[in-house]
């Protein structure tokens, strides 16, 4: 028929038009960049804004710092909530500029966890910082967590929960393992190089994705990301 013959050349422009008027922003467009080593972990190619990810295992801190480093380098602020133990030397070696790092403690020294206060602080921090690195306290109420998740999603904040996420709702989990250390011998040498395997799983991280990265010791300018690209 004549009509069918005419319809074929129209498909391409129509598809383009459809893309232009599409009302939703795709998740892939709302990502903050990660180092290309980690690109394979996420279907969207980066950390999607508004999502909460748990990072566990024996290399959790290094992995989380390496993940957020490119974002902080490009001007985002990083808040460390209840994480006074993060090693700042390691952070700067992994490429996090410390000028935009703020630490917030939610419990006074010597006191126990206060989940209510923790929720308030994280919610307030979500207003001003782009990336949150948090430790989840024990005993979070389900209602509080739900409200907080909505807030974090609305504010387009990337939250990484270090260690056991407890009842904190997470979109995915990164399980890290320091697979191999080199440089340390039996009474000699020193820790030089570490290979870390990161495995992604969870609701929003489908498939069995994993990647490897190494923490090298080159003493050259630590402002460049200290992760080498070996992806599997």
């Amino acid at each position, binding site marked *: 028929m004549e009509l069918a013959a005419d319809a074929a050349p129209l498909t391409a422009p129509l598809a383009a038009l459809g893309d232009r008027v599409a009302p939703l922003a795709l998740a892939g467009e709302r990502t903050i960049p990660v180092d290309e080593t980690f690109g394979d972990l996420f279907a969207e190619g980066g950390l999607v804004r508004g999502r909460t990810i748990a990072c566990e295992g*024996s*290399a*959790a*801190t*290094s992995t989380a*710092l390496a993940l957020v480093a490119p974002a902080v380098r490009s*001007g*985002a*602020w990083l808040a460390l909530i209840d994480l*006074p*133990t*993060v*090693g*700042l*030397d*390691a*952070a*700067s*070696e992994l490429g996090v*500029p*410390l*000028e*935009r*790092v*703020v*630490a*917030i*403690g*939610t419990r*006074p020294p010597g006191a126990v966890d206060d989940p209510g206060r923790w929720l*308030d*602080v994280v919610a*307030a*921090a979500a*207003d*001003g*910082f782009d990336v949150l690195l948090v430790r989840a306290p024990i005993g979070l109420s389900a209602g509080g967590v739900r409200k907080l998740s909505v807030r974090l999603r609305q504010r387009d904040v990337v939250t990484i929960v270090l260690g056991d996420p407890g009842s904190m709702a997470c979109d995915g989990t990164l399980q890290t*393992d*320091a*697979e*191999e*250390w080199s440089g*340390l*011998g*039996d*009474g*000699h*040498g*020193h*820790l*030089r190089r*570490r290979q870390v395997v990161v495995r992604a799983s969870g609701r929003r991280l489908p498939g069995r994705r994993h990647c490897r990265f190494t*923490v*090298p*010791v080159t*003493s050259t*300018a*630590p*402002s460049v990301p*200290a992760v080498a690209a070996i992806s599997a």
Partner: protein
Amino acid sequence: MDAPQRIVSIWYPDWPVTAAGFAADVPAAVMSANRVIARTDAAASDGVVVGQRRRRAQRRCPQIVLLDHDPDRDAREFEPVVRCVAELSPRLDVIEPGWISLRARGPSRYVGGDEALADRLVQLTSELSTSMDPPGVGIADGRFASSIAARLAARRGRPVLVPAGGSPTFCADLPIGWLQTLGECDPDLVELFGRLGLRRLGDLAALDAVDVLGRFGHPGVHAHRLASGMDTRPSSTTDPAPERRLDHVLDDPAAHSSAVVFIAKQLADELAGSLAADGRVCTRLVVVLESEHGERSERSWYRSAGMSAAAMVERVRWQLDAWVNLPRGSDQELTGGVVLVRLTPDEVRADDGSQLGLWGGQSEADRRAARTIARLTTLTSPDAVTVPVWRGGRLPADRYDWVPAAMVDLDRRTVTRTGSGPVGPWPGALPTPSPATVFADPLPAEVLDERGELVQVTGRGVVSAAPVSLRLLTGDDATGWRRGRPRPIIAWAGPWPVEERWWEPDRHRRLARFQMLTDDREGLLVVLERQRWWISARYD
């Protein structure tokens, strides 16, 4: 309009690199925001110029040593110079580290004329240290002309004296770019002057002040006034009323500088707020600190652009830092806690506002973060919201300090250190990679040898036996210790002994460091101190 005062300016070229302790014959440069802000003569002769990018500087001069900018270090190292000049004339203004101005009239009469005064200042400052080049000394009417004279003097190697009343002629032949060099005008305005054919300060001065006001507004009038050698603000800037003076007397002497700075922050906020309510801004601030033993530190700080509350606090911090670090036995050395903090606005002027840049400078994210920090501070406590500050040390826990964010000027800050590890000023620090988890309070542990006995290290740094297993301890001395499961050690290295501050009995530390790898692939930094084992950091 009354004639400008006669002012002496003392200027050290490239002070940040001098403060970092580099001699002129070592190629070195200080970087801020990836650009050179100061360099040594050796680097300059290789073509490294101020404002250059890091890469280009390295290409011009491959063996150059690049350092990060540290305003605190600049201020600390400048203190001896300030004290030395204060011997001659106590009323001096520190504009920034490396740049002092003082009124010429009194001291000039005292030593017998401007020339004698300039020679005396050069002599005084060169006696201070043989490694430092003497500064440039310039004397002229008005701060602007005298600052230019000091810079020319540093270039020429001899003091530059502009005769009384000679500032307009002195300025007339100078290029218009000086307005930007001295930070009096923003680069855009200076560039515009250049495009309009006003290439010398004299060209600008030749215009009618009323026309300049009509075309360029207040910044233009300010530039015009400076270019004409009439370096006075309009006389509407009456002296601030004495009740503007703010002080705080502490009942408990403050032993920590953070406590003093926190009080200064409150005072500065109040002062800047009350001045702003009148539409005025403080250009010269006198900071007085007094200790419980009656020692006093008084400094006058000048900033032609006016000081915000954060800038005031920063100056208090510089002054306090310099006071604390005075050498033993010097005059007015700080021996007790601080009991009095006083901020006096010595000179104020109408605040004609400033136009914020569209690009660069503070970003929206920075402003949002600053607002949130203020909100979080009220939500928790001032001590709970902290930002890192470099302190330096051999142990991971010593290297950075967390200071309350409310006390720090958050924009234009550099924290990250290049050259960590064994290089740099901390020989004996651990090699990279650094541990990602550092325990402020180390975890007690036990390290055992093959026979199940505690591993010891002798005074000469020899291990009694190879460590074989490690176990954590929980509990405390009062209730007794519970031992955790022993974990086999598969690799280890050490001991790396450290002996710190043996000259101070209270803070003396003597310890041996080990790196250990347990069978579950966990890397640990383990420390033996006073016969007890601690896990001080984890490589995770």
